[in-house]
């Protein structure tokens, strides 16, 4: 089974789904969100070698036209990430589903599940299907963190081994979505209603960026379209304040919304029938 580029694995996380979970971050994304918090996960390394000299521990080297990465020497100082001008990272390990699973299973019995995030993890649907079948067999709950560009209806095997999807709904208005991400939102909205109807939607996330995103309409419409399916599976609506931390220099100037504005959005989601609404 093919490997996927793994940016990093967090062993214990309290913020990527219910309970304590291990989180796998895959590398590469097909959107270009202006407010992306981890832009270094967006692109794959082009092996320009710019980062190699700045590595303080010799974890990076250059050979046969490629940047080589030695995970055992890395101290995660992020010097390479700061050097990279391609929104990539040289610290990528290409792991098979079996190798990834072997790193996750070490955390049992402390974790209840695994979340795969990114980048956009659904760029690697076959890898996910295989990884999640191994996880489910081991009794671990499986969640995907996705931007909704995959046509989930075409991957029934993946859906079978996925307990839920945490889906970003960035904007209800197509033109705004395009301005924020460079892509239309048709696929995202189809994924939203499809996953909800299948009882596979775990969470909707909307990042609130005043002046950039039509948050009010997005929250209202997304909540309205999902509410009829809440009997299939409970869905949390997570309303997330934009914060400049980690965001690319050019997009850092957006404002962080205030608590009152966020709570007003939460009220809109509740008014549409969502019962589990959180603001972060």
């Amino acid at each position, binding site marked *: 089974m093919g490997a996927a580029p793994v940016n990093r694995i967090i062993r214990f996380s309290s913020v990527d789904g219910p309970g304590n979970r291990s989180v796998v971050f895959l590398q590469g994304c097909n959107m270009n969100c202006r407010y992306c918090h981890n832009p270094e996960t967006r692109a794959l390394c082009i092996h320009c070698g710019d980062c190699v000299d700045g590595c303080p521990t010799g974890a990076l080297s250059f050979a046969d036209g490629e940047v080589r990465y030695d995970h055992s020497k890395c101290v995660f100082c992020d010097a390479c990430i700061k050097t990279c001008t391609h929104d990539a990272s040289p610290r990528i390990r290409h792991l098979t589903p079996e190798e990834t699973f072997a790193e996750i299973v070490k*955390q049992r019995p402390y974790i*209840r599940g695994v979340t795969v995030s990114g980048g956009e993890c659904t760029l690697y649907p076959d890898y996910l299907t295989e990884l999640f079948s191994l996880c489910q067999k081991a009794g671990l709950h499986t969640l995907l963190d996705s931007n909704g560009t995959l046509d989930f209806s075409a991957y029934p095997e993946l859906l079978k081994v996925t307990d839920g999807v945490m889906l970003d709904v960035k904007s209800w208005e197509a033109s705004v979505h395009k301005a924020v991400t460079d892509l239309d939102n048709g696929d995202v909205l189809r994924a939203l209603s499809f996953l909800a109807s299948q009882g596979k939607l775990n969470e909707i996330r909307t990042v609130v960026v005043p002046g950039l995103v039509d948050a009010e309409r997005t929250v209202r419409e997304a909540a309205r379209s999902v509410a009829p399916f809440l009997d299939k599976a409970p869905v949390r609506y997570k309303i997330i304040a934009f914060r400049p931390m980690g965001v690319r220099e050019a997009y850092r100037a957006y404002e962080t919304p205030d608590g009152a504005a966020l709570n007003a959005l939460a009220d809109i989601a509740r008014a549409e029938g969502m019962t589990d609404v959180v603001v972060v």
Partner: protein
Amino acid sequence: MREITMERVNETREKMLDVVKSRTLTHEQKVANMANLADSLLEVLELPEGLDDLLNRDITEGQCICDLCEGHAPLRPRYIVPDYAKFMKEGSKFLELPPPSDLYEALNSLLIFYKHVPSVTNFPVYVGQLDQLLDPFVQDVDEETAHKLIKLFFTHMDRTILDSFSHANIGPVPTKAGEIILDVVGELEDAVPNLTMKVDPALTTDDFILRGVKAALHTAKPSFANHPMFASEFAEGLSAGTDCGNYVIASCYNGLPYGGGSYTLSRLILGNIAKRAENREDFCTKILPEVCDIMARYMDERIRFMVEESGFFENNFLAKEGFIRRDRFSAMFGLVGLAEAVNVLLEKEGKSGQRFGHDEEANALGVRIMDVIRDFNAAHESKYCEISGGHFLLHAQVGIASDIDVSPGTRIPIGEEPVELHDHLQVLQHFHKYFASGTGDIFPIDLTVHRNPDYVLDIIRGAFKENLRYLSFYSADSDVIRITGYLVKRSEIDKLEAEQNVKHDTTALGMGAKHNGKILERKVR
């Protein structure tokens, strides 16, 4: 009784006068201090040879054994664990109290009883398996009334039990009373009493644990005890309640037999003992066993005096009415500074880069040292510790305020905790099993976990599967925090630092631990 010098008498008189004139001690704290100073003039114990050199030194000057201020002529056991269930059923002749018939009487009777339970601190270190004691009475009143009464009861405890080495237990079975207690402690955010939830995977529900986690994120309690582990280590005979086991958690986190307690607690200061050794073989085969032997004989002598001479077990109403039984007492063989001992020994071998908590060889040496202590205890017979098979119970002592460069029990030193919580937990797995009379580790938790208490639930469930014994959590921003085992309010430490009176004597200990033990610098998880 042996003679002492006038010089020592005069030194003690000076100390007594300082206590009288103290601006920060409350009246109760002065009385207790005066009594300890008076006691320090007595010389009635037959001390083992070699003890003086190991005991009577400053901790920074090589002290190897510490008797934790128990005094020279022990007039009562250090920790007393009354059979409160018997009191609820039968009342007390001495206290002229009939068995309570409703919640009002039950709470009133308990508050009276607490004032008559001695200990090393003069306050009760165990206040009962409160869910089981109160649940029958809670059924007869509406929930709002029960909540109000229990809240008043807890406030009364906090304001009159002036020492946070006082411990209540709940669980493993969820009850209405247990739920109310968790809600009440979460609302009150007080330091007293300490609280432990006994957790049994087969009996304790997720909902009950989550209620506990939510309370802990507000007020640093309850802590969580591995019930099947403790229950299997304490002999049958007297249980704290249905499915509660024959043990209790008292004081900081001390597992003790129900209806008895612990005569005494002394501790090995392992780092200083290691400094006396030439190398690890010398330490493990000669120096450490010798110090263990002297401490054990010292403890035996203290116990002998208490049982054979003090008259406590013949005259105190707790014993006379059967609320405690002499044959349900054991004693706690304590230790601190395993981390320092390992690091000192490795430094002697030129391996100063290998640190306890981070390196396989270092952790394995820690295990070897623990095996030496366990084997010593298994071979040492202590006449009056029948309840624990004629041996002491090992105890990972949490340290005292004046400890400098001494980590509690087997803990990884603050500031050196592994980056990953998972790695930290895997180190603990090697050490919790040794300590039937208690050990524990403490984790300050990041604020984001308030939104995901299930995260803590998963760690508790996982840890107990991995044979960890006892875990505590608190929110990184809360006022009530866990110092080493006991609880103190940060706001009270601030008052004491401004030289104001504070009601709990443990606040001063917390202040010392803040400065000497760096307890505010633990790694947030």
